[in-house]
């Protein structure tokens, strides 16, 4: 099997990769890869960061309420508007596009608002972040406490196999899961199952790896509360002899989820595992203003991972600061998808395949971490 390091400038980095077979890996947090990552010194490790003068960084980190209040009010207005349309279209064929619109406006911003408010950077005022975080967590069906800790781990050990609970796909990819998740049919039931377990006071082994025991109690009560809302919606459906109530709450997390998967798949897929440099395992993609509104600028994903304290509204400016030190951003969602799908197809045949984009001449070299290749092949 020939080593495939697409676009890699070996001369600059002076790296030689041997031809050894790829060993299929165990992505579970409870498997041997967890300890292996710790032994290799790539768990909770120090990551590369683009040098940015402190003065500029402080400007970029500044928090503001106005952009997030404006965006949140607009989000509510759009949801209410499309919800009214959908309500009046119920019983006609117009209900299909109307609910599709409502579902997208419910689900996609819920995901990005969950994310930004979880970091606590969207609003300047803490309680505003927390209120929107709690609401968006429910709308995303991601219970607030366990997912806060899952996401913290994702930032500590981004795409480190055996450590990161948010690796979207193993290598080779599982297409069945990708297709199911266009309607959240894999992740949704998994999260609901966990809610049931939590409501009975059970935390699964995987979650125990990243949720500290001091947070268990909160996790249990949160899930009980979520399930109470579920019960209320089911009761409303039975009472009205219609699934209409569920079409407005809970079901949009499924039928409206496809756009968040479309966005989410651009973040890390096809890129390196087990490296200590977000430029190698994360992708920045230019998107149109509507997508950027729905996604709250998370298309600037390298920037976000490298500097999570920069709020979403400052990410385009941060991107300008970092450009000289990063591989070129993918110019559109379409370009990113061509890259992602082609990489996933290639990984189906050769799981060791990953994309490494060349860096501009002004950039610092990549930090591959202690294993250099970041995959399961040896380095000579």
């Amino acid at each position, binding site marked *: 099997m020939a080593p495939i390091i697409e676009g890699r400038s070996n001369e600059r980095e002076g790296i030689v990769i041997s031809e050894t077979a790829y060993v299929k890996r165990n992505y579970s947090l409870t498997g041997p890869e967890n300890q292996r990552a710790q032994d290799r010194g790539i768990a*909770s490790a120090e990551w590369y960061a683009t040098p940015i003068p402190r003065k500029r960084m402080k400007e970029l980190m500044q*928090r503001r309420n106005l952009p997030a209040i404006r965006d949140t009010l607009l989000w509510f207005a759009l949801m209410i508007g499309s919800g009214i349309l959908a309500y009046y279209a119920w019983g006609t064929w117009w209900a299909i596009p109307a609910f599709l619109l409502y579902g997208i406006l419910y689900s996609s911003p819920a995901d990005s608002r969950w994310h930004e408010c979880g*970091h*606590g950077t969207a609003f300047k005022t803490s309680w505003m972040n927390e209120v929107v975080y709690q609401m968006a967590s429910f709308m995303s069906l991601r219970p607030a406490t366990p997912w806060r800790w899952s996401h*913290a781990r994702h930032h500590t050990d981004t795409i480190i196999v055996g450590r990161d609970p948010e690796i979207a796909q193993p290598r080779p990819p599982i297409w069945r899961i990708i297709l199911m998740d266009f309607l959240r049919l894999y992740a949704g039931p998994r999260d609901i199952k966990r809610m049931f377990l939590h409501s009975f006071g059970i935390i699964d082994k995987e979650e125990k790896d990243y949720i500290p025991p001091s947070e268990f109690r909160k996790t249990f009560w949160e899930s009980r509360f979520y399930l109470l809302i579920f019960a209320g919606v089911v009761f409303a459906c039975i009472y009205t002899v219609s699934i209409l109530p569920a079409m407005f709450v809970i079901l949009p997390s499924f039928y409206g989820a496809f756009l968040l998967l479309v966005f989410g798949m651009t973040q890390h897929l096809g890129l390196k595992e087990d490296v200590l440099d977000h430029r190698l395992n994360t992708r920045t993609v230019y998107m149109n203003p509507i997508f950027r509104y729905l996604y709250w600028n998370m298309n600037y994903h390298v920037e976000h991972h490298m500097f999570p304290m920069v709020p979403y509204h400052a990410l385009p400016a941060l991107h300008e600061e970092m450009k000289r030190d990063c591989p070129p951003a993918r110019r559109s969602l379409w370009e990113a998808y061509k890259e992602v799908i082609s990489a996933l197809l290639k990984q189906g045949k050769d799981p060791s395949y990953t994309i490494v984009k060349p860096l501009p001449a002004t950039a610092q070299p990549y930090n591959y971490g202690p294993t250099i290749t970041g995959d399961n092949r040896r380095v000579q």
Partner: protein
Amino acid sequence: MSELEGWVEACGVDDIDEEDVIRFNYGDRSFAIYRTEDSEYYATDGFCTHERVHLAEGLVMGHIIECPKHNGRFDYTTGKAMKKPVCIDIKTYPVKTKAGKVFIQMD
């Protein structure tokens, strides 16, 4: 750097901008020294109590320092953990200024 009666000179008063933080290493220890908007000075351990990330890269907002890694927060005047994933308070150290210098008292 001079040591007087258990106090260690950390930096000049103007080495830290208002509402900012700098790193101060001493031997094998590391600290974060803060200056408020009113030019009061404070010091804490340098590394976050959640993971080993230095707070000097973080953001100072009033009396809060936000950690650069996971956005956990401390009140740096008291050391109290204010926002998850930070759960454990951070150690604070007495600070005084004299002759344009900032001193911290270590234990």
